[in-house]
């Protein structure tokens, strides 16, 4: 040990480093403070602000916020039949999109993870990701053209068109987690199941599905929440139908009624919390 090294060790930087080395908890808290501050302020803070706003009202003419407590927004929300209908419709669309994506994505992800060669695997991942590079609006309008009466599909617009378009838009978000989950599934387990006499369906039911279920849940959280909050696709291909997102948008964008929009926006938050709680009971979250 030289003298200069000893001097270097007593410098302020080195002292801080030594302190952090000895105190693991301080090190950890410093490391996490930035992301935690972001999570706390930007994310939870915004949610809290939303929730608080929901109890205010607006001066309907000047559009200024009136910051006094009122239950009126939630009263309107609960008593209005139309909001219940819209909430249920949005829920139905989100469930349908999730199921369709699951049915399309699972075989796709399985083929990518277990059947394709490593080289093809890379290309397939890139292909799945490519649509994400194109603008959301361009894709939605492309579906509008296809669904038009004189278009390739010609189904016309409506709720069905909305479900089809959303299923297309969110498909990569379902494929990728399932692909990642299936990749971690050792191929030897499939061989073992085969050796023990299980055929395709039984192997799927007793080995592949239980082990990939957490990944399916992860994907479904994406597709479910993205569908629940969407309002643009339904505006473009939804014909005359509307979802929760449209009610929120109309109240902010057209009526300038932020408090009521905030009250409406708590509906998808509540639905997501219920969904996450249900998922948690299955134990899938622990295995993510």
């Amino acid at each position, binding site marked *: 040990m030289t003298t200069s090294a000893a001097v270097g060790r007593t410098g302020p930087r080195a002292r801080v480093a030594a302190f952090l080395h000895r105190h693991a908890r301080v090190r950890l808290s410093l490391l996490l403070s930035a992301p935690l501050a972001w999570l706390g302020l930007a994310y939870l803070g915004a949610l809290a602000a939303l929730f608080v706003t929901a109890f205010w009202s*607006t001066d*309907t*003419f*000047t*559009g*200024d916020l009136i910051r006094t407590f009122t239950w009126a927004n939630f009263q*309107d929300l609960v008593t*209005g039949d*139309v*909001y219940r*209908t*819209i909430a249920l419709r949005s829920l139905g669309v989100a469930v349908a999109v999730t199921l369709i994506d699951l049915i399309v994505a699972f075989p796709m992800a399985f083929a990518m993870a277990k059947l394709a060669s490593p080289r093809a695997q890379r290309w397939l991942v890139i292909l799945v990701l490519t649509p994400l590079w194109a603008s959301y609006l361009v894709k939605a*309008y492309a579906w*509008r*053209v296809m669904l*038009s*009466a*004189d*278009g390739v599909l010609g189904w*016309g*617009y409506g709720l069905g068109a909305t479900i089809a378009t959303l299923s297309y838009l969110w498909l990569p978000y379902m494929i990728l987690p399932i692909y990642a989950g299936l990749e971690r599934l050792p191929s030897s387990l499939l061989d073992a199941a085969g050796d023990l006499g299980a055929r395709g369906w039984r192997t799927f039911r007793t080995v592949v599905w239980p082990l990939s279920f957490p990944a399916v849940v992860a994907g479904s959280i994406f597709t479910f929440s993205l569908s629940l909050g969407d309002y643009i696709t339904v*505006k*473009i291909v*939804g*014909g*005359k*139908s*509307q979802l929760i997102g449209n*009610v929120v948008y*109309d*109240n*902010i*964008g*057209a*009526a*300038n*009624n932020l408090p*009521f929009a905030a009250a409406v926006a708590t509906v998808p938050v509540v639905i997501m919390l219920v969904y996450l709680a249900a998922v948690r009971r299955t134990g899938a979250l622990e295995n993510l």
Partner: protein
Amino acid sequence: MRPTSPRPVFLTRGLAVTAALALAALTACGGSSTGAAGGTATAPGQSGFNPPAMEAAKSLGSGEGQVNLIAWAGYAEDGSNDPKVDWVHPFEKATGCKVNTKVAGTSDEMVNLMKTGEYDAVSASGDASLRLIASGTAAPVNTDLIPNYKDVFDGLKLKPWNSVKGVAYGVPHGRGANLLMWRTDAVTPAPDSWGVVFDPASPHKGKVTAYDSPIYIADAALYLMSAKPELGIKNPYALDDKQFQAAVDLLKQQRQIIGEYWSDYTKEIQAFKGGDTVVGTTWQVIANLAKAEKAPVEVTLPKEGATGWSDTWMIAAKAKNPNCAYKWLDWIISPTANAQVAEWFGEAPANAKACAKTSDASFCDTFHATDEEYFSKVHFWTTPIAQCLDGRTDVTCKDYSEWTRAWTEIKG
């Protein structure tokens, strides 16, 4: 086709301008009515509220070097969309005021942006202007400081949506009507009434369109003015409980035959072109573009009249660059710039002299710029407020937030 714009405008529509009207238009063009002659609308609704007391500027100083605008898309073009469409750079060159434009998508976005205090002027539609006035966000405008104001059509001056109690709060930018458009191969005979979009037994079920905004309730109210005179609707933006319910019921019934509601105009052009929609409400510019794309469509101003828009350039009460803002207001209604913006956006110009400056000589005829009788049938968008705009004091009218709730309910 006009060479200056990528939006070709085809003139196929016959014009029914009588000699008398042409004469009236000439008078309007030649007249230099600075005062509030003829055009003053003393709508009783104007006494419905008292805006915060504010003084308009008495004189103008030199420019501050910049001006911050909130504008509808296409209202402040600087050549970035089309190099030939540029009235911002000439303004900057002439006045030394650099223009910073924020394009807003909806009236409410404009109201909210104006409230930030970061902007000097805004192109507000009638469903935003009163709110800006009432909240003290927009200041009165001294039109004597705006030389081009004298050439603005009287039919646009001191209206309920751009003035309060005879005090101007901005300068008119332009105007247009919400028209009835139909596909000539599907809808025969040619309709002349809004009844065609409200008929529950319509043969075009599933192919009817309507504008996706609460303000469309006024279209139903307008139709009820003649279809059900016993309701006593005088102004489609001033609806009491019973009248409002009738309009909402009509729209709920209309929903059965609606194919889709439109809000952006590329969507409507495509729907008419593809035949997904065969009849419904539209703007002149949409009709022009649809025809340019060879869609067999026609438009008309139905016999009941129509709703429409008339935008106003307003100055923020807390404008940091008021001198440049005044210069902009004068510039945007100058004959040349007003002609350019009207042609680009597809609406009737506000300045009578702009008609001589359009690149398409018959532009003002197509858009009925000088046709006051045409516009007398147009009820321009105005924010519905609790104080009835038609002057009734014995009832309360439905305000815009109730219109919005009802719109959600109509769409179901």
